[in-house]
């Protein structure tokens, strides 16, 4: 059984990130950013890249930090806590995992390659929206791609291959769409006889989506934990009927259950990250369990955050909606909880 605790190095990494995010990415900043045209917080992304946290699982020989997906998972917990508007999932997780699986780690050092699949794609799904011509040029449409606006390179699955595409090339059109999650922008990518370079096989996409599912769970954990904290703080100070509302069992028991669910989320997230880091053959099970649990935990935490804040929690001027939109979108990302449970039917030999 892998180590489910945090190392001293991981604790330090978390502390450094939390301080940085508290300073530069407080929720009013995040809210203000949602009404700007810039698709993500470029200054914060540059800081994260400088720190090296966007290339943790990339080997040092390829210009990365030579750490692993375990440490990257800690980064995602912190980014989830802050609903940080940076393209970490699309680039530093999905893009990097695809490049590592395709044997092209050199392209992952600056975390600027984004995996061009619909964000809702579960591991193992058939992707047939793009076809490659005999000369390697690509034609087709990919909808709802996360973080495509931040890509220096789009990694496009087509047929049995994975292709690198320059988003600025002729025949490539990236169009931002209005997304439910205001802190993770989505784009439709249209390719019309676009120039492309084959860099690997389609199996790299499944590997990337499986690693992505395992790592997304960490972001969901961070978000759930933050929603629980905000809510607990609030119900201690909000008085109705002459008592803090947090003294009523109707709320206390729901918060206790939420805490228990977050404690479980931490265990499944650590296990999934450990499996991703070591290339454990149990990764598909670990990722499916992590998604089945954490998708629901994050949505519940965000929904309880709204409900227990009462009226103020329903307003634009409170961060609860940022968390709710991220949590619900993340629960649809990389396969719903139901799809991950369905995958367990095959993985755990429990056929229909």
């Amino acid at each position, binding site marked *: 059984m892998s180590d489910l605790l945090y190392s001293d190095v991981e604790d330090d990494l978390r502390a450094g990130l939390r301080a940085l995010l508290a300073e530069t990415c407080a929720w009013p900043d995040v809210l203000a950013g949602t009404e700007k045209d810039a698709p993500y917080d470029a200054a914060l992304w540059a800081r994260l890249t400088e720190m090296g946290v966007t290339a943790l699982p990339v080997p040092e020989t390829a210009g990365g930090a030579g750490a692993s997906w375990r440490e990257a998972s800690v980064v995602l917990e912190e980014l989830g806590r802050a609903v940080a508007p940076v393209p970490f999932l699309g680039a530093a997780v999905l893009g990097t995992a695809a490049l590592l699986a395709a044997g092209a780690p050199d392209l992952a050092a600056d975390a600027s390659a984004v995996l061009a699949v619909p964000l809702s794609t579960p591991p193992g799904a058939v992707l047939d929206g793009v076809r490659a011509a005999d000369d390697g040029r690509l034609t087709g449409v990919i909808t709802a791609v996360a973080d495509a606006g931040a890509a220096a390179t789009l990694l496009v699955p087509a047929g049995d291959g994975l292709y690198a595409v320059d988003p600025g090339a002729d025949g490539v059109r990236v169009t931002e769409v209005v997304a439910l999650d205001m802190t993770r922008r989505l784009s439709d990518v249209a390719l019309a006889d676009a120039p492309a370079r084959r860099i690997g096989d389609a199996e790299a996409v499944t590997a990337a989506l499986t690693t992505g599912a395992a790592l997304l769970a960490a972001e969901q954990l961070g978000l759930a934990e933050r929603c629980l904290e905000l809510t*607990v703080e609030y119900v201690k100070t909000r008085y109705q009927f002459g008592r*803090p509302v947090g*003294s009523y069992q109707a709320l*206390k028991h729901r918060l*206790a259950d939420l*805490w228990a669910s977050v404690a479980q989320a931490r*265990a499944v997230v650590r296990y999934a990250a450990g499996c991703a880091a070591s290339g454990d053959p149990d990764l598909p099970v670990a990722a499916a369990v992590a998604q089945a649990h954490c998708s629901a935990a994050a949505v519940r935490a965000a929904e309880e955050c709204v409900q227990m804040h009462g009226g103020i929690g329903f307003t634009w001027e409170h961060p609860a909606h940022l968390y709710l939109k991220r949590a619900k979108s993340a629960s649809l990302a990389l396969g719903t909880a139901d799809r991950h449970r369905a995958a367990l039917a095959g993985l*755990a030999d429990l056929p229909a």
Partner: protein
Amino acid sequence: MSTAPPDEAELHRRVRDFLAVHDPAATAPRDFLRARFDAGLAWVHYPPGLGGLGAPRALQAGVDRLFAAAGAPGNQPERNAIGLGMAAPTILAFGTDAQKERFLRPLWTGEEIWCQLFSEPGAGSDLAALATRAVRDGDGWTVDGQKVWTSMAHEARFAILVARTDPGVPKHRGMTYFVCDMTDPGVDVRPLRQMTGEAEFNEVFLTGVRIPDEHRLGAPGDGWRVAMATLMNERVAIGGHAAPREGGMIGVVAALWRDRPDLRTPGLHAELLRLWADAEAARLTGERLRQQLAVGAPGPEGSAAKLAFARLNQEISGLELELLAEDGLRYDDWTMRRPTEVDFTRRSPGYRYLRAKGNSIEGGTSEILRNIIAERILGLPAEPRADKDVPWKDLPK
């Protein structure tokens, strides 16, 4: 004179040296266990002279493995769960030197079984409301009252007992913690039959039971603090064990699902997959708790683990009956028996369904656990209370 506690290599060397002198095949089990205790290889984190060597608790598992591999007799911990899990740590923390000397060795070897006299008909979740009275009487105490939900009382030599010694002060302050001799003529143990048909538990009637003052644990009036320490140990014991995947009740249902394609329906499939994923999450949480304990940083996850364990057992055993359909209508045996341990896998699905109903009640109800999580972990305010500053004798009962 003090020496550093042994490390893993030194401990293992001591086990091998011990086994070289005490051949498990040629030594009577009781003598072997006593000698193992005296060598400090019983519970290695206990102090020297009390069955341990002051070693890190994490090293216990390795020592146990070496003894098991050598075919050494065990101390049958399943027969003495209360003794090992609750009485021993309480005696170690609160007992006098004489009490530690007297009680710990035969407790660990299993020569003396222990039970717990805490709950009463009128004091379940609200344990501090208990009414069993202990009255000072010369050099000892005289105890009268009724206790309930006492497993192993019919086999126990001693009990840990909480009784009211001062009814004139608010309830949490007027209790005292004792060791009760179960062979006292005033102790009457009667089986308490439960919904499964068995009697795992007993009612214990205490009439003029004499307890010498040397058998008091902690100061008079300090019983609540001592009892809380005991109960924390209980919850760690219930929630914090490592198990393999499908190691619990989910494994029984998963095997049934694989064996019986004729029973499968889409709705039950969805339910099974949900519970399988939930069971795996609970298992990993238990494993994480175990890892925290091993490095000496116990987290509060024990409460979460027990909540999840109760809910899962109830939902999974309910699913098993639905899956079985007609066979789910049967029950194996209603004969009144007195089992010494609970084994969910040995009996029928109907037994599992019924027995699991106790999981959210015993060892702290799920509702009380949620209060504990909310108040002690999340720091939420307590509900207003009517019983806080009122003498126990004036409380409505």
